[in-house]
């Protein structure tokens, strides 16, 4: 027997003993000779040796883990991908079975799955955070109830015009002295515009009278340049006036014009003095000399009062007592 080489079948029967080292020296020698000549048995012995090592590995000798470690690797990562869907009930039948079998043997994944099973509904609840009761009203106040800049501006203008300006005007016109003060203001305005040498519209009254006095027979060339256009525009009206009044209005206008010229000449010194004091008021205000400005305004007031008296009066002295004359400016 020691001279006969082992057959493959005999080697298979002795394989376990060979791997365990339990064969005698003579049998080990025969096995060695056989393996040297038989590649099939060499592979068989090698595979058996690996399997034996696998079975021997791991603390608890888990065969599956050992096989996985030697082949595809751990399946935990795949299990992690399915844990979430397992808790949500979204796995198909096969996947559900596969992962459950894995969880039966993998403590770590089983704990993760259990943790996620209660974590998922907690997270869903945390997806809603009820704010305090005032929150909604504040959002509405800052959105649909918020006033746009255009609305704010319009309300401001309405408030300014309607309530304040109109209210002020209504209060003003109800005052007893309103008419007097308006006449005073209108007079000042007319004097400021027409009644002093430097006034911007100082020529207008004269031109107006000139136009009214002009009969249709007067040619435009006899009028001043500014009056020509006005005369051209008003010619139909003037023709009607001339035709219906027979020149009476002309006479009246001429009389008014003569009186106007006389009043103007009589009051000229006082008006010029008023103009100088008006300039003084302007300079004092510009220099912020308030006391001087008030003084100039007082002088201006007296000049205007004098001018008015002279305008009305055709003979009284300019030094007459101011209190004795009705002066609407005082």
């Amino acid at each position, binding site marked *: 027997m020691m001279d006969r080489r082992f057959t493959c079948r005999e080697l298979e029967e002795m394989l376990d003993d060979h791997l365990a080292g339990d064969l005698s020296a003579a049998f080990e020698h025969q096995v060695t000779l056989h393996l040297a000549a038989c590649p099939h048995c060499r592979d068989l012995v090698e595979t058996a040796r690996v399997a034996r090592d696998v079975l021997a590995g791991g603390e608890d000798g888990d065969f599956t883990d050992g096989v996985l470690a030697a082949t595809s690797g751990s399946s935990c990562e795949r299990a992690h991908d399915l844990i979430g869907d397992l808790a949500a009930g979204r796995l198909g039948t096969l996947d559900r079975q596969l992962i459950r079998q894995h969880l039966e043997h993998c403590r770590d994944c089983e704990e993760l799955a259990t*943790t996620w099973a*209660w*974590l998922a509904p907690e997270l869903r609840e*945390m997806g809603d955070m009820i*704010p305090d009761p005032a929150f909604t009203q504040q959002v509405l106040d800052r959105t649909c109830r918020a006033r746009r800049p255009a609305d704010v501006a319009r309300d401001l203008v309405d408030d300014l015009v309607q309530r304040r300006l109109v209210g002020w005007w209504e209060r003003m016109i109800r005052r007893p002295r309103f008419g007097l003060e308006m006449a005073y203001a209108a007079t000042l305005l007319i004097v400021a515009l027409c009644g002093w040498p430097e006034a911007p519209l100082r020529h207008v009254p004269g031109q107006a009278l000139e136009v009214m006095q002009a009969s249709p027979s007067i040619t435009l060339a006899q009028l001043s340049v500014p009056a020509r256009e006005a005369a051209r525009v008003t010619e139909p009206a003037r023709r009607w006036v001339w035709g219906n009044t027979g020149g009476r209005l002309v006479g009246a206008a001429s009389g008014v014009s003569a009186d106007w010229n006389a009043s103007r000449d009589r009051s000229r010194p006082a008006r010029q003095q008023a103009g100088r004091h008006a300039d003084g008021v302007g300079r004092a205000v510009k220099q912020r000399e308030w006391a001087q400005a008030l003084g100039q305004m007082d002088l201006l007031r007296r000049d205007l009062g004098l001018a008015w008296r002279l305008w009305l009066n055709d003979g009284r002295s300019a030094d007459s007592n101011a209190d004795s004359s009705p002066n609407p400016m005082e």
Partner: protein
Amino acid sequence: MDLVELLERCRQGDELAWEVLVRQYQSKICAIAYTYVGSADEARDLAQDIFIRVYRRLDTCRDADRFQAWLVQIARNACLDHLRRIKARPPRQDIPAEEMYDLVAEQPDPEQQWLQGARKKMVFKALQTLSAINREIILLKDMQGLPLEEIARLLNVPIGTVKSRSNRARIELARAVQGLGGRPGAEAVS
């Protein structure tokens, strides 16, 4: 209530419709804001700003089916803008999270109501330990329930990336919770 009609009314300026919309989504917006900023007061102000943005841009959302995703996108952008702004500020002397949870108010404020229960406190603490992207994915997918396609569009990444990150984020969060004592069978941290 039909969301299509509700949105159309809001666009037409119906104040009642807008109020209903605000009430319907205010809890979600507040939760999103709080998850990003971690402070109840800041989250409240931020949530109001988010609604103002939504109100001004209602005309840009014409698909009612995507309204929630559109809303979450606006909320996310507002939160990120807010975080960028405060990043430049010097750090405040914040109350630590543990002490904040233990503060007792005369009346339970929204934050306390939201974090009622030891579990929720533990979950919130665990969330803060995650990376920003993982926390965001947990917020969008597991807290707000957005589909993967919308999350991918929001974050501008492929759907596959969102899915794999979502799985990793869940495991990371579960491990963080376990690390805080939230193991199965163990008493939750009080």
